[in-house]
């Protein structure tokens, strides 16, 4: 884009060309890079022992300093500042990649130890023989009950929040005028910012008033997730409905079609790709929520398919509890926790891929 306009001399050979005279050439730039790496390695050796991490950090710092000083000497102050900004920007980007790649790598490498068939067929209700066999390194116990729980609790949350969210978005875009609409918009913003633990406490408080203190159930977890998911659904659906051209609505009205039918038959089908993408992404957002489920659904050792009574295991809570409070031998619990974390990340990744595919396949022709 604008990059092509800004610095025509970046790639030009230095020397003869009047446009690029007095500018750093590619060779000089490469030289600075090599010098920075050399300084980085030297600095670590001098300061006691070569280490990759420190060498990289020193090299990065010395590159930033070198490029500024050299540009200052060979070019002018403005070019030097520009090069400094470019270097800092690039370094920040690389710096940010490290933790993010490290997270991905850690989850995959540690999670794959127990990411096996047993993990997806057994629960944590283990016989004494199975428990004893763990000490000899047997891989027993799994999270299939937590997978069921996560799918059920999140599914119920989606069942609650998609209609509410969609109708609210329709209200805001197609009907909303005046004070109620303004208040709703403002409150959706507030709802977006509710901390997940507060949503969990709300659901807990609600169900305590109905069923008495200390109650735990899957549906309470679903209600908590609904509070978190609905504003996300509203925001994305609203955005998509607003993209539908007014000409389509007007053409429909002109043919005498009532407003509700226009919305159902014209507006929603036009926006359906975006709406479904938004719904999928909102599911991805809440499926890994731990805190609200910790206080509402708790954790169970076995499969519980009734969301209206008793504790239900879910993958995020399973991950947390097995890591934080491992049973003996601890490594078995920790391995299971990592496998559950990997399962969660895989589910999120699948949902993202579905959303991406859907947004390309379902997009109506002629829009965008």
């Amino acid at each position, binding site marked *: 884009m604008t990059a092509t306009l800004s*610095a025509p001399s970046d790639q030009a050979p230095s020397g003869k060309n009047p446009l690029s005279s007095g500018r750093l050439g590619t060779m000089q730039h490469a030289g600075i890079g090599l010098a920075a790496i050399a300084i980085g390695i030297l600095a670590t050796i001098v300061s006691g022992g070569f280490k990759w991490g420190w060498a990289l950090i020193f090299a990065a710092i010395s590159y930033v300093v070198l490029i500024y000083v050299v540009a200052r000497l060979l070019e002018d102050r403005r070019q030097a500042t520009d090069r400094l900004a470019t270097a800092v920007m690039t370094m920040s980007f690389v710096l940010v990649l490290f933790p*993010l790649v490290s*997270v991905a790598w850690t989850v995959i490498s540690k999670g794959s130890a127990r990411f096996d068939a047993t993990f997806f067929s057994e629960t944590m209700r283990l016989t004494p023989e199975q428990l004893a066999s763990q000490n000899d390194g047997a891989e027993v116990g799994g999270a299939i009950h937590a997978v069921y729980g996560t799918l059920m609790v999140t599914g119920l949350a989606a069942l609650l929040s998609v209609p509410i969210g969609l109708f609210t978005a329709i209200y805001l875009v197609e009907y909303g005028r005046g004070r*109620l609409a303004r208040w709703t918009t403002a409150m959706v913003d507030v709802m977006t*910012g509710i901390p997940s633990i*507060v949503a969990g406490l709300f659901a807990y408080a609600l169900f305590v008033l109905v069923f008495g203190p200390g109650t735990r159930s899957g549906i309470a977890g679903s209600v908590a997730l609904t509070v978190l998911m609905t504003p996300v659904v509203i925001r994305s659906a609203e955005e998509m409905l607003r993209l539908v051209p007014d000409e389509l609505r007007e053409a429909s009205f002109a043919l005498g079609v009532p407003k509700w039918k226009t919305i159902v038959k014209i507006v929603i089908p036009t926006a359906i790709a975006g709406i479904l993408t938004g719904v999928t992404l909102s599911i991805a957002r809440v499926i*890994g929520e731990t*805190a609200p489920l910790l206080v509402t659904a708790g954790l169970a050792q076995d499969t519980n398919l009734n969301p209206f009574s008793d504790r239900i295991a879910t993958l995020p809570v399973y991950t947390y509890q097995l890591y934080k409070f491992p049973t003996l031998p601890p490594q078995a619990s920790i391995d299971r926790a990592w496998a559950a974390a990997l399962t*969660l990340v895989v589910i999120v*990744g699948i949902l993202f891929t579905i959303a991406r595919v859907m947004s390309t396949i379902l997009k109506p022709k002629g829009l965008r």
Partner: protein
Amino acid sequence: MTILDQSPQTGEIAPVGKLGDRIFGGLARGAGILILVTLAAVALFLLSEAWPALTGDVTVLDGGDTLVEYIGPLVFGTFLAATLALVLATPLAVAVALYITHYAPKRLALTMGYFIDLLAAIPSVVFGLWGITVFAPLLAAHVYPWLEANLSFIPLFAGPASTSGRTMMTAGMVLAVMILPIITAISREVFLQTPRLHEEASLALGATRWEMIRQAVLPYGRSGVISGAMLGLGRALGETMAVAIILSPADLYTLNLISNQNSNTIAANIALKFPESSGLEVNRLIASGLVLFAITFAVNAGARRIARAGFSGAAG
């Protein structure tokens, strides 16, 4: 869908589809009202469950703290962790957003945008596990001893340095990694909306790329960056699991970022204590949740105000 069946095809006197319109419009309106009711219910139910702790005597519980003494250090820890995360994440996020929008090749930029959105959806419990398994030992081995040896005259790094790495500094840095994708995503969006003519005018006058960014992109995107940062702050304030897993908490006020004694955050404290609590303890935890709700409410309201004021200003 019974509404579909009632579509009046006859259409004699009444305007076509009047009943359908009324039902559908009513449903839409009802959903809007339901949002308001839900939010009111959140505040009301929290208040009703927090009431015994607010009015009763909580000093009978372990520790013997009054409610203010109990929640005070938690509020302090919450703000400390969130501020730390924000200070670390915002400059980096803006730099990354600028890199993606104005420096990276377009193809790479699209992929990176997708990657960063994906990272924003990685569950916090995963970040927590990563923080305590990989990041905390790394910092404890290489960074904290150095900070203690060289910078211990600053109260923030007074030490003694934690050997496990379960410190406020680690928690803040992990939170920074978590909110970075959010701030980056929003900044990237506003930077992309900078009018092309502003950018090209700046370049045509001979500005370098950095000067163009300072003259055209940053002034235009400033309010967007601020509201993105406020959103990130909101998320950091309410973030639970990562802090609950990483931090080794204590009931005190401290600015010391690298020791084993840290002020806990409200959210992490609830997650740690709630499963084993009962009776008045639960009410006390819910009271602290109510405080957190109020704090995030205020932060989000502030973000909204800035975003609105900023965007109308940027257009002029």
